[in-house]
């Protein structure tokens, strides 16, 4: 398998020096870039704490004892690794492509590149795809070889089924109980009430969520002319319209949809990134990266 078909190495190279971190501390079991709730193992000093019986003696700071004549234990801020659940929407609507790249292929490439970068920084990545009633996600791994296996599975993914979030997310929460961040790559063409409910569930589970909203440029600009019969990719609904005459109304509807989506994510502390399939991947990923 040619990895560069799935991973945008150029984008990854441009993002060298950037890391993907969370605002809240996490519990990890290996050293990573994330701040850990478990203090002491890290060489970075965090604070002093008065000794109490039972504390390990090796953490006593003897220099402080010599100056203050009191026993203090040195506390260290430990940096641990994190588990990322990268979920790719593979519903029927993700199969749309105005050009050569469908939204699903773009979402996979974006996710694969992100997963690659996350693995590089030492995080465990669980890469999967989902539709309304189904989710396939591999166990989180930190090694690149495991990532390649996960990517191999994505290669054969086809866009089908309806868009839905609640069931797949709940199943993922059950299967991966580690402290984890969720990256959802989707067009979010679903009921926004249901989506908001799902987001609230994730947030109440203390999960950090990133939303990559993938759209085809034609879905924004609707540049069609003449009378066209449009068939929905998910439910097969057909509608015949004069494209030119409906364009303005369509664009207004899409803008409203995006605004509502942004509002929902903003209210729930979700990082939102609008992705057009003709945009460079590094421009999108950098929006959630930091130096």
């Amino acid at each position, binding site marked *: 398998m040619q990895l560069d078909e799935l991973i945008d190495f150029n984008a990854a190279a441009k993002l060298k020096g950037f890391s993907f971190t969370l605002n809240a501390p996490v519990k990890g079991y290996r050293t990573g870039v994330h701040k850990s709730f478990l203090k002491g193992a890290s060489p970075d000093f965090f604070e002093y704490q008065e000794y109490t019986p039972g504390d390990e003696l090796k953490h006593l700071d003897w220099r402080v004892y010599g100056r203050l004549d009191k026993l203090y234990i040195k506390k260290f801020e430990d940096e641990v690794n994190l588990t990322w659940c990268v979920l790719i929407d593979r519903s029927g*609507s993700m199969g749309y492509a105005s050009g050569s790249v469908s*939204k699903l292929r773009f979402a996979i490439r974006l996710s694969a590149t992100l997963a690659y970068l996350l693995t590089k920084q030492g995080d465990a990545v669980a890469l999967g795809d989902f539709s309304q009633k189904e989710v396939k996600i591999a166990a989180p791994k930190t090694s690149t070889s495991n990532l390649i296996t996960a990517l191999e599975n994505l290669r054969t993914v086809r866009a089908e089924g309806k868009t839905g979030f609640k069931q797949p997310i709940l199943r993922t929460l059950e299967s991966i109980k580690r402290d984890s961040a969720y990256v959802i790559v989707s067009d979010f063409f679903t009921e926004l009430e249901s989506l908001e409910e799902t987001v609230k569930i994730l947030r109440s589970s203390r999960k950090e969520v990133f939303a990559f909203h993938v759209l085809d440029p034609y879905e924004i600009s609707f540049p069609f002319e003449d009378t066209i019969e449009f*068939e929905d*990719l998910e439910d097969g609904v057909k*509608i015949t319209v004069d494209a030119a005459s*409906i364009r303005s109304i369509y664009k207004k509807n*899409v803008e409203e*949809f995006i605004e509502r989506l942004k509002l929902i994510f903003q209210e729930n502390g979700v990082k939102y990134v609008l992705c057009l399939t003709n945009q460079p991947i590094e421009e999108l990923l950098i929006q959630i990266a930091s130096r």
Partner: protein
Amino acid sequence: MNLSLINPFFLVGLLSIALPVIAHLISRKGGLKRRFSAVQFLVSSEVQATRRSKLKDIVLLALRALTVALLVMVFTKPALYTFSAVGAASPRSAAIVLDNSYSMGYGDNFERAKRLATEYVKSLPDGSFAIAVPLVPSGEQRPGAFADKSAVTGDLQDIGLSYSFTDNAMRIEHIYNFLKTAPNEEKEVVLFTDMQKNGWKSAKFSRSWFRAIDVAPESGPHNLAVTATRITETEENTTVLTKVFNYSSEPVGKLLITLSLPDKLIRTHIDVPPGIEAQSKFNLPPGALQQEGAPAKVEITNDELRIDDTRHFVISATKEPEILIVDGDIREDTRLSESFYLSSALETITAVAPGNITTVDNEKFPDVNLDRYDAIFLANLGSLGPEEAGELFEFIGSGGTLSVFLGDRVRSTYYNTVMKDILPAELGLPEEGAFTLAPGEPDELSSYLGSSVTNVDVKKLFSLRPAENAKVLLIASNSFPFLVHKKIGRGTVFLFGSTADIAWNDFPLSTYFLPTIKKIINTSIVNKHQGRDFTVGESVEVEFRGDADTATVEDPNGEEFKVDIERPQFSRTFTPGIYTVSTKGGREYKFAVNIDTAESNLEKISLDAQGAQSRDEKLGLVKVLREIWPYFLWAVLFMLVTESIMAAYLSYRTSFR
């Protein structure tokens, strides 16, 4: 102003209007199909957008179809045309004569004549004067010609069809004389007519100031007319005889004839060969027509000229005719008298009662009151004064039938002088020889007698030179007419070139004598019936019954006219139908007025005789065309620009709304 197409076959191109329609339907039905991910955003706005889309489609479709239609019209080269008078460059005074004789009622000839006449008036140069005149006079004539064209065209529209006809040449001369008082040096009389032959005495009426414009279609007119009805009552039955003339060149089969009596309708069918007067008899039980004086009519299926499809009559029982024989050479042996053979023949005729035959000699004749007789026979009358001749003329004019037999007492020069207005032929000298007879001009009698009449031997007969309107029924082998007849007023005169006895011929002994006398009596009976049957325009003498000295005549339109006993002539018989005469205290009676069917023969007079041009150009008119296709071309360009602007505008509106 009329619209004409120079290349009308290009109208086929109008079918191309279907192209934008088909393109529209294809684009709507079998248009593009796309699979799309965000259909949910289309659904909410589809209804409004579709409505806008349909409006846009319809507007653009209409514009495109109109553009194609206009483009086709460019190729057909539309042109407006008017008829303009030939050489009508200088102002003139014109009499626009509209033929309103009833033959113009055929199809839409009369309306077409009005339309063409109106165009003609409009085409007259400024400064011209014109007057609209009906060919058959009706009502009062305008006092002069008018420069106001709208007044003249208004007068044209007011002219109505008459139920009669006139002497066209005389009328046109009269109109021209009237026109002489009008301004402008150049004068012309323009007749818009169907060129029907009746009304023209001569086919060569040609005047420099006269033009006739033929308004009738080219195809030969097809017309049938009811020409006569007659009721005959015998002991066996009552017969209503109807005559129908087929004036076309095509036979008519199973023509429906309807007899409308006061209490019943009777229908029958007859076949009418072309150019023939066919007869149909309605046989009724004896005494079936008891409603003396009641109106009735006979109708045939309507054709293009309806006015002559109906004939009205008043039921009138036949009165036994009163007959007078004036014998100029009464002998003691009655068998040698001229009157012997006549009275013998008359007595055998059923319709004649023996007591109704009166014989007088030459001397008593001046004392006889002729009014009570229906038929008079003059046999070898040697002496006849001018006064008696005058009475005979009145007798004939009022429907009487006069038969004149000649003989050795007759002096031709005297007869020619005294009875000049009565006799159907001028008398010459008698000639002796051995002659036979032969049928003369086609007639009911001559046809009946047939060629077998040659058995009759004639030893002596006068030379007769028939008058203009006379008809020779029998002719001798020396080419002398033997029997000539002529109608005068409502009456008829028969003139025999020989004697009523066997002195000069054996005709009275032949089997042909009785039918001939019967024909004469029938003619008198028919004439008697005509006492209640008049022709349009004929003057009717009103009978005043009881002590009344005024009478009221109600015409078929319900209009009433007063008639005074001192002037009993009623002349307003302009409308065919039943007229009712009522007098104060007296019983009312009716009479029928019918059209003169001479006008029913729609045969045309030769256009060449009128100095006419071809009909396409119309006589005296030329077609002036003004091509207007460039306007259509401009309209096409305008429509193309409009279509582009509308398409852009509608797209703009829908895109940025």
